[in-house]
């Protein structure tokens, strides 16, 4: 039902562009170098006791030249618009009006970056006795910046990408936390594989340095507190450390890529997703196992890139699933980049394609034995994305040829 594996007669879909702006740096080389050095960028103080993986500062001007455009966005949109520009550059289509006028965009987005001063101002005034019926209305009318709404709307990440980079094809925004990133890739792949589309920009962005988001996740006690540990080593100290990142991919039919002489990083063979009920222990692991079975046969040198969050019980469920495939070396993006929510799955796809194109999986960074060394070049990488609360996605990225 949700399977989009390449079928006979369907076109092969290549990943021809990758754009990354993360807590480890900007661009493929900087991220790759940090992964090789097992360098993790966490801030344990700025939001203490909560831990975040802050964005490595970038010069937004290079991808968002107009200051006016930058002012119209909040951080999550600037990060995403920036990373999307890097992906277009990487694919060699930046500024190519013929292609950008028809490119299909599928973006995974959250939204709602709030003005904390306005929120706190209203609440403290009410605590001090402000209780006129129209008090909230009046404060919001006078204190909210008119353009803030546009910086909050989920579909305005895609809107800003279209405006800044001149994209004139189609634009769809999927919401729904982690699995939205998998579904964005799933739908873009299905559309290209079936011939509905030739080329698509897919990805997401997230600003983890947000206290309003921490409140939301704190409701469910999901925030990692006090001390950083790799994702697999958080069993008795569960939680995720929010991360800031933008990750975008250019997906393209093989024919379209070849016609313009574009080289692939890898091919995206399949993306599958489901919604486990997660009522009983084992539900989620069973769904991951089902998705694993829906992927095309793995015969090459395989590995797994997991987006496990560190939150429980999801992370333990996923570890149980991974134990059943212990011959596949595992890497965790959550350990290295923090939890970037909607962006985690596109980030996993990007690192899978990068690992395949560079002929090596990046090294493990784990004390529990879940991640093991890998010798030689991976040819098939399974990307796993299980949401901290709901939603499971999986993809197979393969070497071309």
């Amino acid at each position, binding site marked *: *039902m*949700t399977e989009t594996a390449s079928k006979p007669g369907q076109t092969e879909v290549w990943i021809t562009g990758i754009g990354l702006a993360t807590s480890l740096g900007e661009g493929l080389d900087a991220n790759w170098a940090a992964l090789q050095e097992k360098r993790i960028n966490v801030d344990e103080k700025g939001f203490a006791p909560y831990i975040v993986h802050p964005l490595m500062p970038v010069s937004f001007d290079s991808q968002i030249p107009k200051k006016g455009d930058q002012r*119209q966005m909040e951080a999550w949109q600037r990060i995403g618009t920036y990373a999307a520009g890097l992906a277009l550059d990487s694919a060699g289509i930046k500024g190519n009006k013929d292609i950008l006028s028809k490119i299909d*965009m599928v973006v995974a*987005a959250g*939204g709602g970056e*709030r003005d*904390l001063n306005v*929120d*706190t101002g209203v*609440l*403290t005034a*009410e*605590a001090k006795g402000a209780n006129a*019926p*129209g008090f909230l*209305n*009046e404060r919001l*009318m006078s204190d*909210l*910046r008119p353009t803030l*709404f*546009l910086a*909050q*709307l*989920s*579909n305005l990440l895609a*809107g800003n990408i*279209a*405006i800044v980079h001149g994209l*004139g*094809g*189609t*634009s*769809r*925004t*999927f*919401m*729904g*936390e982690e*699995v*939205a990133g*998998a579904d964005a890739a*799933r739908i873009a792949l*299905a559309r290209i594989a*079936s011939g*509905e589309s030739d080329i698509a920009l897919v990805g997401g962005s997230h600003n983890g340095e947000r*206290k309003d988001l*921490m*409140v*939301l*996740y*704190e*409701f469910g*006690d999901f925030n990692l507190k006090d001390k950083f540990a790799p994702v697999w080593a958080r069993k008795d100290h569960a939680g995720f450390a929010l991360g800031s990142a933008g990750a975008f991919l250019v997906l393209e039919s093989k024919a379209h890529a070849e016609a313009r002489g574009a080289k692939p990083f890898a091919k995206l063979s399949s993306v599958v*997703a*489901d*919604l486990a009920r997660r009522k009983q222990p084992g539900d989620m692991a069973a769904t991951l196992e089902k998705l694993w079975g829906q992927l095309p046969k793995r015969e090459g040198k395989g590995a797994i890139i997991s987006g496990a969050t560190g939150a429980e019980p999801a992370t333990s469920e996923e570890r149980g699933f991974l134990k059943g495939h212990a011959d596949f070396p595992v890497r965790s993006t959550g350990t290295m980049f923090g939890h970037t929510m909607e962006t985690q799955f596109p980030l996993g796809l990007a690192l899978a394609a990068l690992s395949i194109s560079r002929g090596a999986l990046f090294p493990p960074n784990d004390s529990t034995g879940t991640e093991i060394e890998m010798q030689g070049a991976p040819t098939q990488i399974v990307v796993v994305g299980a949401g901290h609360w*709901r*939603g499971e996605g999986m993809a197979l990225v393969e070497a071309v040829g």
Partner: protein
Amino acid sequence: MTAPRDKFGRPVVVVTGMGIMTSLGAGKADNWAKLVAGESGIRTITRFPVEGLKTTMAGTVDFVSVDPFSSTGLSERMAEIVTQEALEQAGIGAKADFPGPLFLAVAPVEVEWPQRRELGRAVGAPDFTYDDLLRISGGGKYSAYHHRFMFGSVAAHLAETFGTKGSPISLSTACASGATSIQLGVEAIRRGETDAALCVATDGTVNPEALVRFSLLSALSTQNDPPQAASRPFSKNRDGFVMAEGAGALVLESYEAAVARGAKILGVIAGCGELTDSFHRTRSSPDGKPIIGCMNKTLADAGMTPDQIDHINAHGTATPENDKMEFNTTSAVFGDLAQKIPVTSNKSMVGHTISAAGAVEAIFSLLTLEHQRIPPTINYDNPDPTILFDVVGNKARDARVTAVMSNSFGFGGQNASLILTREPA
């Protein structure tokens, strides 16, 4: 007998179930009766104080109770009710076992003021910082709010309740969201991934901050008195849209699957199209090219020509810019026919249901095809002389309608159109 495939060799996609809710009421029968009678669902807001607001009316759905109240909770409840109605009509699958995926258009979700105020009170001090709010948020006391304010929570609830298959997709393309949910369903069926899809769109976000946000962008009508006269599409004295709540659900099936199980076919989704506008965050490109391209793509997708469209269900928000732009772009696509094809805007009566509008208006378009009667555009007393549409003003009109184009244009350059027909082309 009609061919199960369209002229491009794709499965024909039909509608076999519909459910609707607007400020006019619940269900197709009630909505249709009031719509053709020219009734307005717009009223002065009573859900929360309106002091200090420039706009004090909206098309609220006040007859559905949600406890504890939240806009997301109302969106979810409305979606559930319209889905139930659509499934009953379609008679598809078993209880809680819908044989296909869910595509849900839903307003972006965030923690809302009642919950934020609850936190503020829980701090228990007259002076505090945001960190104090954060500090008291954990410990499990508010764990229900985590689930409530996940973007995927409404879709997860519907998927579990109705047993849709696979990963439900929650989407936003602003005011075009409802149309996009239908488009995703059509594409999944055309690709042969599924024989059926559940497309739902819902929006229950008439709350103080949402109203303020649109107000600050000068998008809303301020003709508060009488509220029923506020939404004036195509009128000279239109001054903005009216926020509204509502939901629509459509069961889509391949023609072949619907016929095989003996389902009644309510209409055909003959074509869908979308085209993004990269001109501005809230305004259309002055040359209208993206909207023109969107309509042309939709005609091409349906394999139809402009002369085959005999009714347009307009986006018709009643903002000064939109209606003018819609006439100009429609003229560019339809030529002289733009002044001959009857046009109506449901938003004159139900207001702008934002994320739900595309689906709500697709359902009204299908009901128009069924009843061969076009609902009116009310408050059309002072026509804009530069908008030369044949507006179905104030009174419903009987007409031969075989194909309707329904348009949705939104913030962020989102344009989407649908063509709905009675029979497969």
